[in-house]
């Protein structure tokens, strides 16, 4: 192994407080931490995987979903993929996760084929997909090996602010709590690439904002590369370094978002970019 997975999480134990929404701003920044995201990620430069897609295509039988997708994602970058429903954005994510097979082209992670990085990729589904017959803590420990599996699971759970729900059944949790557990389950594997397939799609507006902050803070903390599929353009702009729009089977727009974090929804620049992307989504090819 390149690094000890358990060790990765340990320095962040004191970070528990951040999991509570609203606390993020209140917590004093630590010495090495500076306001801009790029610098903040520097403590762990090798964490994120780079992604390279060359001429990627995917068809289900006769139906073409993706055509000639070319894409570069830098290590540690947060990329959001937006598009209408059925545009193939989830399919692209599932291809990266290895849940679907490519019809054409190639996907490489840090220059190596997907199969070599299976352990470094974790996927968060739209529905939490917790095993209902395992308690929260055992759901997080799913697929972990070693003596300290439970201990690491407990740490991950406290990072999402649910340490006190360790022994509950998933059935008694709310939708937002289930997604938090699913997030902890993904993080406990110390992924270098986290794939998020509309994980907040089914949550109410307030819970969504809480979860967005949580995801952002954990991404800044751990420095993984993040690929987020969402149908919510404002969510994409609130979180991502880059927003990709997939339309008519291909990448129709690649928009950088160079704004300081955490971004507030009322911000005029955020609104301007949102408007720009929305125009493009609403089928005005000349707008971009």
């Amino acid at each position, binding site marked *: 192994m390149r690094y000890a997975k358990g060790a990765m999480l340990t320095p962040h134990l004191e970070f528990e407080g951040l999991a509570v929404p609203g606390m993020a701003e209140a917590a004093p920044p630590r010495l090495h931490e500076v306001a801009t995201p790029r610098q903040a990620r520097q403590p762990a430069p090798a964490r994120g995987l780079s992604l390279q897609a060359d001429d990627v295509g995917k068809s289900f039988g006769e139906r073409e979903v993706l055509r000639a997708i070319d894409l570069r994602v830098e290590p540690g970058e947060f990329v959001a993929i937006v598009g209408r429903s059925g545009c193939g954005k989830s399919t692209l994510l599932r291809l990266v*996760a*290895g*849940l679907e097979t490519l019809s054409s082209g190639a996907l490489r992670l840090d220059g190596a084929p997907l199969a070599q990085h*299976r*352990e470094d990729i*974790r*996927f968060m*589904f739209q*529905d939490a*997909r917790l*095993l*209902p*017959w*395992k*308690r929260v803590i055992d759901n997080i420990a*799913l*697929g972990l090996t070693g003596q300290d599996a439970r201990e690491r699971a407990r740490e991950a759970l406290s990072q999402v602010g649910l340490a006190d729900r360790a022994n509950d*059944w*998933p*059935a*008694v949790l709310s939708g937002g709590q289930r997604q938090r557990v699913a997030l902890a*389950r993904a993080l406990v*594997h110390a992924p270098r690439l986290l794939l998020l397939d509309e994980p907040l799609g089914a949550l109410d507006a307030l819970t969504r904002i809480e979860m967005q902050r949580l995801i952002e803070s954990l991404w800044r903390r751990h420095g993984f590369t993040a690929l987020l599929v969402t149908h919510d353009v404002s969510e994409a702009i609130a979180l991502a370094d880059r927003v990709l729009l997939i339309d008519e089977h291909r990448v129709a727009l690649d928009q950088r978002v160079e704004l300081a974090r955490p971004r507030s929804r009322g911000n005029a620049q955020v609104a301007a970019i949102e408007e720009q992307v929305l125009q493009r989504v609403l089928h005005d090819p000349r707008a971009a």
Partner: protein
Amino acid sequence: MNQAVSIQGEAPAAGAKPATGAAGHSSLSANPLLQRLRAQALPWLVPAAVLLLWEAASRFGWLSTRVLPEPWAVATAFWSLSASGEMWHHVAVSTGRALSGFAIGGGLGLALGLLTGSLRSAETLLDSSLQMLRNIPPLALIPLVILWFGIDETAKLFLVSLGVFFPVYINTFHGIRNVDAGLIEMAKSYGLSGWALYRQVILPGALPSILVGVRFSLGLMWVVLIVAETISAQSGIGYMTMNAREFLQTDVVLVGILLYALLGKLADVLSRGLEHWWLRWHPAHQARAR
């Protein structure tokens, strides 16, 4: 329009309410404990009345003991049979037959259900044959079974095993097939495969369905055993009742019937308990627990 109807509809109800409300209120305030006791005793009123009527009918000679013995006689028969140890011997023999038949038939049903549920090739090879056999009632095989195995233990074991096999098999098969594909996909992408995937995801996912099969087959287990023991046996509850019939001991016959009822109920309670423990994660069971 709607409003008018509802107002008219409410008027008589509102008028009637004070009368019943006052009556219920006075007794409730008089003694809430008595009220609760009455609510619990009420369901037993009809059975108790039937029992009393039956006892009276026997005492006054309206009911011949050849048709039905008096309840008291059944109770004393139960007592003397149990005191002599004869009844317990028969109960033990019957329970042993039932459980070993259940173990063989249920075990085979579980194993084959897991096999056909998990492997497509096993399904194409076996499932349609098993579905054909399923439509034969096990009791219809009795003449054949007697020819094959005679009338001793093997015949009873075979019949019980056959009876419990299909409910377990079918529910196991469907349980495995209906495990949420999303959960399997998730578990695979989190690095689970092979036996770990089977034990942590597929088996627990199929468990609710398997337990439904177990409960069905426990009911069938007694039905088949009763018939098998009634045809021919040298011991067991069925033997006891058939023997009693020869000597017109209707009280003993009734004791046998009661024993079957009690054992069947016991099996059901046990399987419910098992379900409650194994499926304690299930929302339905949590709701019941609260």
